[in-house]
């Protein structure tokens, strides 16, 4: 077991993540300019999408592929349901729905880091897992919003039944949402046409269309640079995650925080583990090979901190980003990177060998 952990911890990308975190904790002024960070993340989506598409073109589109994709979508629908029912009593409905959407969706960088981990360990994985990742972003957002709406409607009905017309006005504040904010068309657009989702899906299609001929043309770009660019991006993520963690500490001293720090941290570690168990079990049931099983597991375990927050600020602005963002970015993300990947791998290995 130790060797997996150590190998993971001593890979350059992970070490650069630590370096970034150290910079933030020591209050160094090291900083990656925001447009550069955006560029690095666009590059990673572009490259992983293209590589996945090329791999997809070379594989036969048989039952395994469809099963894998279906499993992924199922996960991204089921996980938010579970998370919402776990949290909706402990948090305001909007926040619970936002956390549900966050954990039902995926973190592309965690996925990418996991593929780099597999490549370094010489374990094969299939290109269609990239498609699986892309498919998991949107349903989770939609489910999250739906859950919130149902809850609000249910409350409004309960209030109406119990207390008469005035209360409805209060519940109406929740509904002013409709008039004020987002239509279903907008919601679909924001969840399915989110920039990150769009780029990865688009690159995957282009990769699949142009195949190895296309790869030959841009291999120097998407291949050779990949780990280096990932290092730089994780350096930035380390800085940002550590800052959020620090702010979490100082904010938690405020008495009006909706969720005490310790509980928030516990959730942010328990949720990925629970989701990993779910996804891993599914992977085993589907007889996925080692690499694919680990990737599906990490898709389940990871939580979005780019695509979903961006979409949620539009679709659910009443949810406080100071809950779902630090949970996924400052705790779950590093947890998966440092502990999760080798841990899930170890467990899957053990399960596969028995």
């Amino acid at each position, binding site marked *: 077991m130790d060797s997996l952990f150590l190998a993971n911890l001593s890979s350059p990308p992970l070490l650069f993540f630590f370096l970034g975190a150290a910079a933030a904790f020591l209050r160094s002024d090291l*900083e990656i300019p*925001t447009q550069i*960070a*955006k560029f690095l*993340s666009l590059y990673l989506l572009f490259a992983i999408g293209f590589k996945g598409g090329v791999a997809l073109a070379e594989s036969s589109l048989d039952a395994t592929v469809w099963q894998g994709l279906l499993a992924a979508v199922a996960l991204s629908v089921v996980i938010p349901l579970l998370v919402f029912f776990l949290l909706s009593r402990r948090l305001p409905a909007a926040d619970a729905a936002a956390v549900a959407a966050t954990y039902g969706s995926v973190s592309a960088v965690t996925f990418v880091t996991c593929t780099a981990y597999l490549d370094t360990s010489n374990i094969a994985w299939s290109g269609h897992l990239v498609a699986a990742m892309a498919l998991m972003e949107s349903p989770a957002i939609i489910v999250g919003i739906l859950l919130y709406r149902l809850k609000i409607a249910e409350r409004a009905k309960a209030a109406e039944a119990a207390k008469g017309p005035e209360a409805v006005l209060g519940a109406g504040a929740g509904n*002013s949402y409709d008039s*004020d*904010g987002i239509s279903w068309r907008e919601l679909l657009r924001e969840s399915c046409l989110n920039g990150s989702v769009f780029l990865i899906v688009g690159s995957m299609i282009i990769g699949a269309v142009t195949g190895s001929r296309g790869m030959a043309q841009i291999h120097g770009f998407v291949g050779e640079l990949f780990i280096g660019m990932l290092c730089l991006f994780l350096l*930035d993520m380390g*800085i*940002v995650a550590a*800052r*959020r963690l620090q*702010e979490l500490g100082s*904010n938690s001293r405020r008495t009006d925080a909706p969720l005490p720090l310790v509980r928030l941290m516990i959730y942010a570690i328990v949720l990925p583990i629970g989701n990993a168990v779910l996804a891993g079990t599914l992977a085993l049931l589907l007889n996925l090979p080692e690499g694919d099983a680990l990737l599906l597991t990490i898709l389940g375990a990871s939580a979005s*901190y*780019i695509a979903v*927050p*961006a979409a949620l*600020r*539009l679709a659910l*602005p*009443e949810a*406080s*980003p*100071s809950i779902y*963002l630090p949970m996924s*970015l400052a705790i779950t993300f590093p947890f998966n990177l440092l502990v999760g990947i080798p841990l899930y791998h170890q467990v899957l290995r053990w399960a596969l060998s028995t």
Partner: protein
Amino acid sequence: MKACKRVEIVIEEALSGRMAGRLDELGAPGYTLIPRASGRGDRGLRRGDDPTGTLTNCVFIIACDDDETVQRIVDGVRTLLSRSGGICLVSDALWVRH
């Protein structure tokens, strides 16, 4: 030069598109948008450092010489701000006509 109101709105960048659309609907004669600001307010620090744009602000500046429109903008903007945070300041200015 013509008397006008200068409306200044700070809102998170993720909502800038929605705010611009709202201003159009409300009949603002125009606006200028300064992106990528950071800040601190009731909802804590927004460092402008994260890849989501959730913790980044932007600044809208609107010059408007019609008091009714100003009032409409102020009212229309208020609901957006109350859900997402931010500030809106109104001050007097002279608009140099060219």
